[in-house]
């Protein structure tokens, strides 16, 4: 507060009163706060939680968060455009069942996997078409398809499970990079994370997503095809969830109708925790990745410290609520401060703000 007052004494620096210095703009962001929180959690877990530093912990941690990370990538893009996809967990389950049934019917795994991804893609096409071409709210649509896809998955397999998959592929899902505790599977996931980050932050397509999230009409007037953009995001989300389903099946060597039940909640919690605004138009991929790791690491560390999973759920929920409430709290503080600066200048501060 005091530095701001000093700055505003010189007219030349009026403008700077409204803009934070570079270091603050880079360091004092929600994304950085989450990364810092992640660092604190990791550091304290290393210090106090026995066995947290064992290679096995790292392996299990990465295996467990991999599907969540994967689905969080397209989910980030969708939420940036102010839509939501609640059906991803069901798509994972459906894709898992399809993989299992096809392998059982004698298909080689690569073909079964590709068909499972295509199943996910079709699920995404259904979501996308209902949202964009029929013009329905994505929340309602994906609550419906959440039930529908899960219903088909459970309907196809009932309570049975398929757990005979070629060893080569299940091993591939579990093997570590030689000499490290890091699963091989993380490599293609890292590539995908980079692809999605570049897509969101360094392409016109990515910029258009923010534009849509901030103001749909303005985006449409500036030449962005809002409907098609959203449609492709849902297709992307379905395809990636389909891929995650194949991975999930191989990792646990198990295709079941109720695989990944509730995963949509974990994914959305991670994305929102990572600083993506549910109102659209705000968020960054590094925050989301940190959010996924934060939830995963916290759960892993607490489990090792023999905290029960229900308490972990409580903590996840509280974190989620805090992350959104703190954003609006910060916004409130910022408006207070800006209006305080405006009053100090003795002129209409609002004019300067909007310019």
């Amino acid at each position, binding site marked *: 507060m005091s530095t701001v007052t000093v700055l505003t004494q010189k007219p030349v620096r009026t403008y700077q009163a409204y803009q934070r210095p570079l270091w603050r703009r880079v360091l004092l962001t929600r994304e950085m706060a989450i990364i810092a929180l992640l660092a604190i959690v990791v550091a304290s877990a290393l210090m106090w939680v026995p066995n947290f530093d064992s290679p096995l912990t790292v392996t299990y941690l990465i295996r467990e968060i991999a599907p969540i990370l994967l689905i969080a990538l397209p989910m980030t893009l969708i939420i940036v455009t102010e839509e939501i996809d609640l059906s991803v967990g069901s798509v994972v389950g459906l894709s898992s069942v399809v993989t299992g049934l096809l392998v059982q019917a004698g298909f080689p795994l690569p073909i079964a996997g590709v068909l499972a991804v295509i199943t996910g893609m079709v699920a995404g096409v259904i979501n996308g078409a209902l949202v964009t071409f029929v013009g329905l709210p994505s929340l309602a649509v994906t609550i419906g398809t959440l039930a529908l896809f899960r*219903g088909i998955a459970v309907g196809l397999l009932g309570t049975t499970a398929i757990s005979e998959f070629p060893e080569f592929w299940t091993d591939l899902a579990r093997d570590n990079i030689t000499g490290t505790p890091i699963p091989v599977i993380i490599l293609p996931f890292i590539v995908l994370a980079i692809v999605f980050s570049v897509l969101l932050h360094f392409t016109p397509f990515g910029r258009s997503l923010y534009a849509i999230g901030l103001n749909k009409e303005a985006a449409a007037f500036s030449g962005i095809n809002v409907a098609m953009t959203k449609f492709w995001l849902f297709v992307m989300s379905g395809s990636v969830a389909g891929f995650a389903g194949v991975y999930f099946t191989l990792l646990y060597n198990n295709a079941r109708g109720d695989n990944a039940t509730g995963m949509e909640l974990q994914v959305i919690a991670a994305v929102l925790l990572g600083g993506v605004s549910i109102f659209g138009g705000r968020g960054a991929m590094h925050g989301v990745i940190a959010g996924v790791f934060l939830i995963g690491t916290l759960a892993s560390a607490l489990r090792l410290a023999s905290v029960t999973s229900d308490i972990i759920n409580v903590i996840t929920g509280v974190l989620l609520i805090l992350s959104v409430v703190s954003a609006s709290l910060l916004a409130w503080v910022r408006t207070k401060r800006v209006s305080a600066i405006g009053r100090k200048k003795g002129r209409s501060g609002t004019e300067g703000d909007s310019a």
Partner: protein
Amino acid sequence: MSLTIEEPKQHPLVSAAGHIIKARETGIGIAVILVVVAATIVNPSFIFSSDGFRDLLLTPSLLMVVAVGQAIVIITRNVDLSVGSVVGLSAYLTGRLFIDFPGIHPVLVFAAGIALGAVLGLINGALVAFAKVPALVITLGTLYVYRGINVAWTGSDRINASDMPASFRALGTGDFLGIPLLTILAVVVLVIAAWYLRNLRSGRELYAIGSDPDAAHLYGLKVTNRVLGAFIVCGALAGLAGVLYAARYGTVSSNAGFGWELQAVGAAVIGGVAISGGVGTVWGAALGAYLLLTINRALPIIGIQDFWQRAVVGILIIGAIVLDRVLAVRQHRRLVAEREVAA
């Protein structure tokens, strides 16, 4: 387009809207009857055995209570995903009270369950209304938190029928003139809620808030208080449903009410309560709940494995929102046509 202009309907706006809403609820009513008739033709005991008729009324009663609360929240353009967890918590509280305070009067237990639900609803509502955060996110968080508290509190413990007094259990199984008491209670709740939303000023304001929160605020409506109130009512009704759950089923474990949020939202959406707020009635939501659970019971009788029940629920939800959209577009065209004729 030309077709709509050729036959401009001169109905006043209110009767046109009323007509559509009425058609919607009669539609669901007919769907319920069709399901019941189809199941009865395949297996007459679906309705004509004493148990069949009782279950037909009894099974959907609890979800109806939750769906009524959910509808009130959705009408204000919010959503409460935590209702399933609230049902679980208050169901366990019910059993716990009977065990820890032997001889406690059931009325006190009811009051406690409803109060717990109301407090949990108040937490949801306060976070939503004061922090100006979407209800979806907040109640997603409290869904986790409430369920987690429930599991931590319950552990592997479970409440059994023998833990609760017979007089309380009789409420869940008893009937009056052949109609289950729970159903009567659910209908009373429904009638009160419907009357309130239709006739009282504060009830009408909920629709105004849901249609356009900013306009409602500018007009001077107490948006924050009303939204808070809607969440408290929704939580209290979920709490009531939790107490009734204990009375109906006798056993309560840590997963009581698990997944009910989806069914409650689904029931409201199927019943014509628009997820974007401002539209719908609790009658529709209650009928939606009735349809969902009746289909659930009818599927195995018609010869479809009940594994497919969720797929049917999904298709119903999607079908319902597509229908809403089609009706809305048609009404919009009709209004435009009327305006052109008037001009």
